[in-house]
């Protein structure tokens, strides 16, 4: 065996003579650190809030030895919400990574190209025009997101090929149109209904229960596994269509699978808790900068996404204890600044 300089530390997992996989040391250390931070943050989120609970009480409750009140606060209110933030943060981040890889552009993320706006439109139609309940709203949001994705891809594809910049421009345009449709639907509703719908549209993790978490977990599990399996074929796509084809890649199949998985992950997250922007846009870029990877680092991306959404939710709840904000407001505020920076930087590169 020859010694190859990887330009970084690479760990070999498996038998010495036949390692199964090479793991980037930096990526491993960073992922582990982020997950430790997530656990610490989760414990903090479990213990603080309107009811203060000590970490020991919280742990005892998790082990099943808490009194009725702490059990309700920790297990019924806070735990599913924290887990939901971690799960959906990862879903949104992976969806962003998939679309940014597909379009070859850091702006090509599902929250920018209109899928979340479309989900909101779907949800509004169900909530305000058809008068459906929360399950129907989820279905509406899912349908709206997927339909918008179809529309954006249809309008931006030429001869069946998806082109990066065109997709982003078409997506931003569709998103703007749907946003005005959303405002129009909201204006037709009664004040109470409009407030409820507006709250949903801000992206909110409050009121997450175990059944919703379980639904989201089962729904996303398939997509998460598929995303992991697709990570290597997608890395091959980065060398361009001709080279990828010559390397035995079925380019069309990989693109279609990536779109289905990316849309699925975003639509699922949005249908569950409403549109939460910025995570999909920023997490993949933050992850690739800290692990110094060449574009697609799904493990670190998922970890960063989970961390960001959990952090945003903790901030949203604690920033003003008497009137907690919807998490989407927090992510939008930070996201706006990041988006501006990204646009300026992209502008400078040209």
């Amino acid at each position: 065996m020859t010694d190859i300089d990887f330009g970084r530390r690479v760990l070999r997992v498996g038998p010495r003579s036949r390692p199964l996989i090479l793991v980037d040391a930096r990526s491993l250390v960073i992922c582990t650190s982020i997950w430790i931070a997530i656990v610490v943050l989760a414990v903090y989120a479990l213990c603080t809030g309107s009811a203060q609970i000590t970490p020991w009480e919280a742990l005892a409750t998790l082990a099943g030895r808490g009194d009725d009140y702490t059990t309700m606060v920790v297990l019924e209110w806070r735990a599913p919400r924290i887990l939901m933030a971690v799960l959906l943060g990862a879903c949104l981040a992976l969806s962003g990574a998939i679309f940014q890889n597909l379009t070859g552009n850091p702006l090509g993320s599902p929250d920018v190209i209109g899928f979340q706006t479309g989900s909101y439109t779907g949800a509004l139609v169900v909530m305000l025009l058809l008068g459906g309940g929360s399950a129907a709203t989820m279905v509406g949001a899912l349908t709206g997101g997927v339909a918008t994705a179809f529309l954006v891809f249809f309008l931006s594809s030429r001869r069946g090929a998806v082109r990066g910049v065109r997709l982003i421009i078409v997506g931003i345009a569709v998103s703007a149109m749907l946003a005005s449709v959303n405002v129009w639907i909201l204006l037709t509703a009664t004040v109470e209904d409009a407030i409820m719908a507006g709250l949903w549209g801000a992206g909110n993790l409050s009121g997450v229960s175990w059944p919703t978490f379980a639904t989201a977990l089962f729904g996303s599990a398939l997509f998460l596994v598929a995303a992991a399996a697709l990570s290597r074929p997608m890395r091959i796509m980065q060398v361009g269509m001709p080279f990828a084809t010559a390397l035995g890649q079925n380019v069309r199949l990989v693109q279609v699978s990536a779109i289905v998985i990316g849309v699925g992950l975003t639509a699922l997250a949005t249908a569950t808790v409403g549109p939460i922007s910025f995570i999909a846009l920023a997490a993949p870029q933050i992850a690739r900068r800290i692990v110094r990877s060449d574009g697609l680092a799904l493990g670190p991306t998922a970890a960063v996404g989970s961390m960001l959404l959990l952090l945003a939710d903790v901030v949203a709840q604690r920033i003003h204890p008497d009137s907690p904000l919807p998490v989407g407001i927090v992510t939008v505020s930070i996201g706006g600044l990041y988006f501006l920076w990204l646009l300026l930087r992209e502008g400078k590169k040209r």
Partner: protein
Amino acid sequence: MTRLTVDGAALGYADTLVCEDVSVQIPDGAFTVIVGPNACGKSTLLKSLTRLLPPTRGRVLLDGRSLHEMPTKQLAREVGLLPQGPVAPDGIRVVDLVTRGRYPHQRLFAPWSPEDETAVGEAMDATGIRHLSGRLVDELSGGQRQRVWMAVALAQQTPILLLDEPTTYLDVSHQIELLELCRSLNRRQGHTLVAVLHDLNQAARYADHIIAMKDGEVVATGSPGEVITESLVSSVFGVDARVIPDPESGSPLVVPRWPHAV
């Protein structure tokens, strides 16, 4: 012997037909060069030898089987391609890019093997880029970058390698270096090479077999001595030239005539 053949193929893109009816045979173990003026269909013909461009009529065969019916990874273990002007992903290191070439040999859940490591090492040795292994591709010069791409194609370890204008954008010393690399791959390791080249004299020097094209048709095939003649240079390229023996290599050397008084 010939493994790769194009048999009565019509080639083109969505609304333009480039070649109406081409048939070529790629001799095994030889360095074949496709020449011709711009827009004559050279790159189209080369692409038709991969899955990139299915013929609208006729067939492209590898060992008697249609390319487009073979499993994609199996084909990618037989025929490799270095496309024109490939773009490297941002922030990728040389070794990681070269490793991409191992894709057709890897299974989904067994992404790394000692064979991969040996192949990547050999590809970097053959192209003389091992010392650049841990560097970022963005930091390299154009000539170094082209050698990295060549290493990606070599890591694929295909007996047949297609090169689409591999010398474009390189200065003359890097052009010669790359052609020498191709020649040594062909002579030492018996690779079958097919390249599209612009420079007729380089083609004549390095090729064993030349395919000359004009307006989507193959007008001549054979050894450089048979193909590169004054009449062909005039009819295909529209250049009035003398063809004399190259004083270094003995291959035909095209010298355009000097229309002015000396």
